[in-house]
């Protein structure tokens, strides 16, 4: 029993200490965003609806429906969380200014809204900032490493056949998020796994319900709504 506890403790410590992995760099000074880098990100405005399973400490914690509207050109994000029964628990948009439209407890903290918008951007938008390194990992996976203006690092990794992985690290290299896009269907967002390191670590398993491109300019649509 002690051995198992020690093993779990060691695993937790290792997980909490994850840092930027070493890259066998092939283009160490890469500044261009060419096609070598994996790019699972949206190319046009989309509306996506996912079934979201929430897990904490490995246990199933609940299931909700997540709705996302995202425009990669303007980085506009609108999102909502609702129960299967149709109750809207949370709704917000970032233009990029964050505006919370509805937030019922426990979704009513400012941190929750900011984290959610940041997670959506991490999944669906190409990182802002510059590519610092591109190359391969020891297991042969292709990787591009970005650094955002905030100093945070984002690794985008193509590991076949498992799919694409996106990892975000703080400016000091401490791991914060892992996104896995599992290629089980044509749509790259068919199954998304998100692992988050927070005070209480959690993971989300998102299964696509429907996705549709949005025609026209979201900003125009938004302005029209505001005028009404």
């Amino acid at each position, binding site marked *: 029993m002690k051995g198992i506890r020690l093993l779990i403790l060691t695993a937790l410590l290792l997980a909490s200490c994850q840092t930027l992995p070493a890259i066998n760099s092939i283009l160490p000074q890469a500044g261009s965003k060419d096609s070598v880098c994996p790019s699972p990100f949206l190319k046009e405005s989309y509306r996506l609806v996912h079934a979201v399973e929430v897990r904490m400490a490995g246990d199933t914690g609940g299931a909700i429906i997540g709705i996302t509207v995202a425009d990669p050109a303007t980085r506009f994000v609108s999102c*909502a969380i609702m129960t299967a029964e149709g109750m809207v628990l949370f709704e917000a948009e970032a233009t990029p200014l964050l505006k919370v439209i509805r937030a*019922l407890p426990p979704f009513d903290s400012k941190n929750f809204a900011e984290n959610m918008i940041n997670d959506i951007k991490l999944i669906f938008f190409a990182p802002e900032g510059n590519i610092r390194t591109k190359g391969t990992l020891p297991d042969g996976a292709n990787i591009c490493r970005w650094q955002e203006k905030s100093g945070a690092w984002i690794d985008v990794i193509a590991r076949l056949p498992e799919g694409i992985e996106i990892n975000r690290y703080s400016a000091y290299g401490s791991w914060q998020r892992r996104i896995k896009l599992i290629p089980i269907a044509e749509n790259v967002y068919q199954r998304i796994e998100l692992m988050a390191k927070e005070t209480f670590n959690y993971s989300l398993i998102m299964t696509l*319900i429907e996705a549709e491109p949005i025609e026209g300019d979201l900003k125009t649509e938004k302005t029209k709504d505001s005028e009404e």
Partner: protein
Amino acid sequence: MQKRLLTFLSLGLFVLLPCFAFADSFEQLRKDAANIITVQARFVQKKQMKILSKPLISEGRFFYAAPDSFRWEYFKPLRTIVISSKGEAKRYIMSDGKMAEDKSGGVQAMRIVLNEVVNWMSGKFDRNPSFKASLKEGTNTLITLIPEGQNMAGMIEKIEISVAKKSMAIKSVKIIEGENAATIIDFSDVEINKAINDSVFQDVE
């Protein structure tokens, strides 16, 4: 939040049940509700929101057996089941291809709400101080519930329940949450007082 959520849920799910009998008044409604032993039906739920270009459609089925057994089940898009039997309520969700108990904590609060549901089942629409109830006759019978006080503020503006006069069956429930959001549940294949196996209220599969 849990209590508000479950109140919302219970209203959406169960407020309709006593309406399977036509009534001229709430008093008559209560008398008619006393004759209901079981109810089962299919439903289609349409969720309207500004963020959605078209309503999000959910489908499911529900069962009720007097005095207090429920099963409210969504087949898609998100498979969930709420079962309440003999005073114990559980919620299940699909996880890794099988149904797993929802441990998010809402179930405990659900017991409180289901006690209230029993009141609804008894046709006591006008006895809940949280809502002002009115009944209007027309082609269909329309029951309107408007929240009173602040408990539902910002969550529900109005609930409209439509009951077919001739068939005496519920047609739809419309929960209006605000200017840009509503949940509409349309019912079909309604069967009243048809035997339901006990396992429906015990087994999730």
